[in-house]
């Protein structure tokens, strides 16, 4: 049976009754329905394309590998943080503790890596493990104490930040030079961050089709049904928040390649933007819908807006206004587009 023809009717008494005697949607409206199903992804794509078009009209060399390398490097920390956030949002939760975890990760890296590559590698894995563990703990607290994810992760955010601050009271520490070269190294003309992005997408296309990936979306979509179908309430929370912690740790490690230092306060800068990137990319805070591709686009939209405001050369006080307005116009346009698409079809 070919996948391209899913509507092949099945023979039998049942076949006569339901849909096939009913009015069939026209080809155009089926096409429209398919578009609508993907609207929450297509629209951010269009939004990004429009912003890139505007950007390219103001600056030379926007559609070059160099620009890709630069922008990807600029977006990567946020992207890694937002990857974890995406997973949690899909499950219908939220993770504020990534702020603390990113700080803790950079601080540990900057104080423990030393100069011995073996030690640095061991600690890098250690930090990722800590991230996963802390996240899993979040998931456990949320399930066992039956608390809102918002409150639990708010508390662990504070606890993790405090721990980071005890280890390294202010920005400082150092990383091996090889480590900070990571971000600027390139391979086949593409920087490591671009490769990382590719890796992330490969991960996602694998992950979303695993049983766990489906279970996460399902739980966010309808918790009761997911549990009735055999999803373990504590299991799903431990894995989603665990993954979020893990990606926060990865974000921390990547961040240190950019900053070459640790900072006990830097993580908070990624909390709201990670949620914003996901939401701009079409993920609902109520769970179940969206995916990493949208988040990637969301993160790039945020980064490109920064570039755009720079090349627009608006005077300094106007910069936040202009970036706010671009964001608002873009999101407004996409909301209106999605809403009218939905109206014309339902």
């Amino acid at each position, binding site marked *: 049976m070919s996948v391209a023809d899913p509507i092949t009717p099945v023979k039998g008494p049942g076949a006569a009754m339901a849909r096939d005697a009913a009015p069939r949607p026209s080809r155009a409206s089926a096409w429209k329905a398919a578009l609508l199903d993907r609207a929450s992804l297509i629209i951010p794509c269009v939004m990004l394309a429009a912003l890139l078009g505007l950007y390219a009209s103001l600056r030379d060399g926007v559609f070059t590998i160099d620009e890709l390398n630069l922008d990807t490097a600029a977006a990567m920390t946020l992207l890694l943080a937002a990857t974890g956030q995406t997973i949690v949002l899909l499950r219908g939760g939220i993770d504020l503790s990534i702020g603390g975890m990113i700080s803790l990760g950079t601080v540990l890296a900057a104080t423990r890596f030393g100069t011995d590559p073996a030690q640095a590698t061991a600690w890098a894995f250690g930090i990722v493990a800590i991230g996963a563990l802390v996240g899993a703990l979040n998931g456990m607290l949320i399930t*066992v104490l039956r608390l809102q994810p918002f409150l639990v992760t708010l508390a662990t955010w504070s606890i993790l930040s405090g721990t980071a601050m005890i280890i390294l009271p202010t920005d400082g520490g150092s990383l091996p030079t090889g480590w900070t070269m990571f971000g600027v190294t390139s391979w086949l003309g593409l920087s490591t961050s671009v490769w990382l992005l590719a890796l992330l997408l490969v991960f996602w296309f694998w992950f979303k089709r695993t049983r766990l990936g489906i279970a996460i979306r399902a739980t966010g979509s309808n918790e009761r049904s997911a549990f009735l179908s055999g999803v373990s309430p504590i299991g799903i929370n431990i894995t989603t928040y665990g993954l979020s912690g893990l990606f926060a740790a990865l974000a921390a490690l990547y961040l240190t390649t950019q900053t070459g230092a640790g900072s006990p306060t830097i993580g908070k800068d990624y909390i709201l933007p990670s949620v914003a990137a996901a939401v701009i990319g079409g993920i609902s805070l109520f769970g179940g819908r969206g995916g990493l591709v949208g988040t990637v686009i969301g993160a790039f939209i945020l980064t490109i807006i920064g570039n755009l405001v720079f090349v627009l050369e608006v005077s300094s006080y106007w910069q936040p206004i202009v970036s706010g307005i671009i964001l608002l116009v873009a999101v407004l346009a996409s909301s209106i587009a*999605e809403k009218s698409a939905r109206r014309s079809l339902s």
Partner: protein
Amino acid sequence: MNIRRHRAILLAYLGMIVLLLLTSVVAPGFLSPTHLRSTAVLAAFIGIVALGQTFVIIGGGIDLSVPWVLNSAAVLMTLLAGSQDAPLLWIVPMLLAAGALVGMINGLGVAIFGVPPIIMTLAVNVILQGGILVYTGGAPTSTAPAAIQFLAVGRIAGFPVVLILWIVLAALATILLSKTAFGRYLYAIGTSATVAEFSGVPTLRTTVLAYTLSGFTAALAGMLLTGYTAQAYLGMGDPYLFTSIAAVAIGGASILGGSGHYIGTIAGALVLTILTGLLPALNLSSGALLIVYGVVILVTVSLASEALSSLFTFLPRFGRPRGPSA
């Protein structure tokens, strides 16, 4: 109000009392009338900002524009009044209306165009920040007029004026939530916007009104806070973003909407204020303080959660109405 909601609120107050007793062990001075009064006054500022936030969150939204609505009102008030009391007669109502207008814009964006509340209010916050800097040229402002200072720190028969204001607002908020159609509609929308729509609930008007209220209370708090510090300064709204949301959440509301009450938020505001007051007295390092802060929040809200009772029932959680966790 159902029993479950009552209990979450009661437990929030329980958490608050425990915390208060704890602080009095650390430093007996904390139970002195002077300090209780100053704690209550500080809680009032959070409480007033969190009032609008409570309405927005119950309706299933969130307001991240609070910091700069607050700050704009504060800056504009001192700028326009120039330390004089008389102009306040038109400045205060005008700025309250302006705050409400910003809230209304938030609400319209969310309700008419379906912009996700996080993005809508975040963008409005940034635009306001820039707008104020452009408008004022970043000029620092004058001292707060005496009348505003009286509202914020003055006392009538020994009782702080701002507390009287807070009590009045709290009563109004409680009536709005518990006793009016608007309150009912808000809970319905926060629980399920679709069901609300099918039931003929005026979703647009209700949502917009909730955000409008939030803009109003943020502007009000901004002006009062100016009275407290005797001047406006840039950044004065920043601490009120997370505290206003946290107060609502600690007060027993689900951040996803549909539940909670302002009575709970009051406890939330008090918990947060007592806690920030307690921390300096512990003489810990900044890092240790953050850890203590996190742990205390966790313990306090666990108290308020259904966890304790659920330990005794072994039915899976989907067999009963959903608790605040999602």
